[in-house]
Structures are given as C-alpha cells and as structure tokens.
C-alpha cells in the first residue's frame, strides 16, 4: 500500500501545482504572465504565491524596468520538492495500475 503522507500538501493544491509547474518549465515568470496563463484572480494568485514563498519554494524579485515588475522563480528547495512530488504521483499511478 502506498504511503500518501509522502505527498507534499503545499504543492498538491491545484492552484499552487499550476504555479510550481510553470516555474519549473521556465526560469522566471512575471506576475502578469502567471495570471494570464493560470487564469487566476489577483487575490488568489497572491495568496498562493505567498504560501509558496513562505515555504521557501519560490523566490520573489521586484525591479523597476519600464514600470514596476515582480518576477517569481523556483528556489533549489522548490525544484527538489516539485521533483519529489512528481515521483510520488508517478508511484501512486503505478500502484493504482498494479
């Protein structure tokens, strides 16, 4: 029987899973790009990003280019957590099929 406690609950929520996936696919994402891609409200996205930031999975960079811009990236810890999460999901699927 598979130990479901191994699943990272922070990432398992669908909104945060979407954020982590996009950040794993590309080095940095602006707030605007994440919002468009995930079709989330500002409040929802801010809440999830804050949770991921507090967990240490996501780093935040604020800079002034043409206008103020905030970008997000996975930390090393976040990347490792995401890879572990994927492995656990794969094991669940394999266990289910087996």
């Amino acid at each position, binding site marked *: 029987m598979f130990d*479901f406690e191994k*699943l990272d609950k922070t990432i*398992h929520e*669908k909104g945060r*899973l*979407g954020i982590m*996936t*996009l950040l*794993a*696919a*590309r*080095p*940095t*994402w*602006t*707030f*605007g*790009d994440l*919002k*468009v*891609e995930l079709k989330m409200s*500002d*409040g929802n*996205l*801010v*809440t999830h*990003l*804050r949770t991921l930031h507090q967990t240490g999975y996501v780093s935040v960079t*604020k800079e002034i*280019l*043409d*206008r*103020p*811009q*905030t*970008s997000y*990236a996975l930390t090393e810890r976040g990347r490792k957590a995401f890879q572990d999460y*994927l492995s656990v*999901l*794969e094991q*669940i*699927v394999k*266990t*289910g*099929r087996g």
Partner: protein
Amino acid sequence: MPQSSDAEEHLRIIRSLMEKATIYRAISAQAALIGGVLAGLAGGLLAGRNDPFVKALSSSMLSANAEVYGFQLKWLVVLLLCIGVNLFFLQRDAKRRGEPFVSPGMRAALNAMGPALFTGAVVTSLWARDFLPQMWMIFYGLAILSTGHFAPKSLIRLGWAFLFTGLILAIVNGETYMGLREHLPDSNPQEPPAWTYPDTLMARIFGGYHIIYALRTLRRAPATVAPPAA
C-alpha cells in the same frame, strides 16, 4: 486520500501546463505591427513611379530589369528591417522571461521555418515579379505553419491566412477583382502609375495581415505590473 485517478488528473494538469509554457512566439506582436506599417509604406507610397529602388537601378539597366530587381531589392530591405526589429523584441521578451536569447524555442522555430523560407528565397529568382508576392505568401505561410507544434494559435491562424491567400491569388487574378484600376487611378496618364499590382498585394496582404495579427495579440498581452498589495 488521493487515488490513482486523482494522481493521473494532477499529472495531466502538469503536462498541459508544461506544454503551454513551452509555446514559442517566433513573430513578436510589436515587430509584426512595425513590419505591417513598413510593408504598407513600402508597397503603398514607395511604389510605381515613386519607387526609389527602381529609379536608382533604371540608370544602369533596362527599365524592365530595373522594375524586377528594384522590387526584389526594396522588399529585401523591408525584410531585413523586419528581421532586425523582430530580433530586438524577441531578445527583450527573452530577457523579461529570464531565458537566453537563443532559447530552445528559438532554435526549434528556426529549424522548423528554415526549409520553407529557404525554398521561398530560391524560387524568388525563378518567378516573374507579378507572381512573387503570391509565392512569398505561400512559403511564408508554410514556414509559420511549420512551427505549429509549439506556436500560439494566433500565429497558426496567420500562417493559414497567408497560405490560403497566396494560393487563391496564385489562381485568381486579384488585380481584376480588387478593382485596383478604379480605386488607384493614375493622376497623370503620361507617367507610369504610382502603384503596381505586386506592391499593392504586399502592402495590403503582408502589411494588413501582420497589423491584424499584432493588434489581436497585443490586446491579449499580459500586463507587466506588480501584484496588488495583499
């Protein structure tokens, strides 16, 4: 407790988002807008008797040859300007996303578009001037469609639009159906007209389609703003 189906659903979400994240827009909307305006100016204002490229070449060769080479030279200059502008905006976008300029997406786009663009360049020397815009549309459309696996939908639609328009105009004489002689009358019948059919096609189709693509894409572009204070 998560079930196998739940895990599969999460993996499906991950795969779908990963695919979205790897979409590469080989033609920047801003560059398309500038290119569209340039095509409109080159094909609309710098055509016929006002074409500086044909005028410059007329002194050194037969006027029929000057018309052909002048046309090719003018649109080569427009093409190079558009490529330069596109590279500038692609580089800016890559920097904003924290990606290298020559990203895997750009390499994939160049590999995909290369054969159709190369063929289009080669056949440029084979066809008469009046048939070149249609051929360019066809090969340009094919080049864009070659990026279909990782291009956004708007770009794929642009590719189909060029391909179909090029094919239709290769079969049908657009000069008759567009009523160019009625809409673009010659102010001075003693001189050559201030327009040519190929230039008009380039201005209307290349210019027009790029401007439409740019405006539709820019309207949906994400805002680069900071998140609201929580």
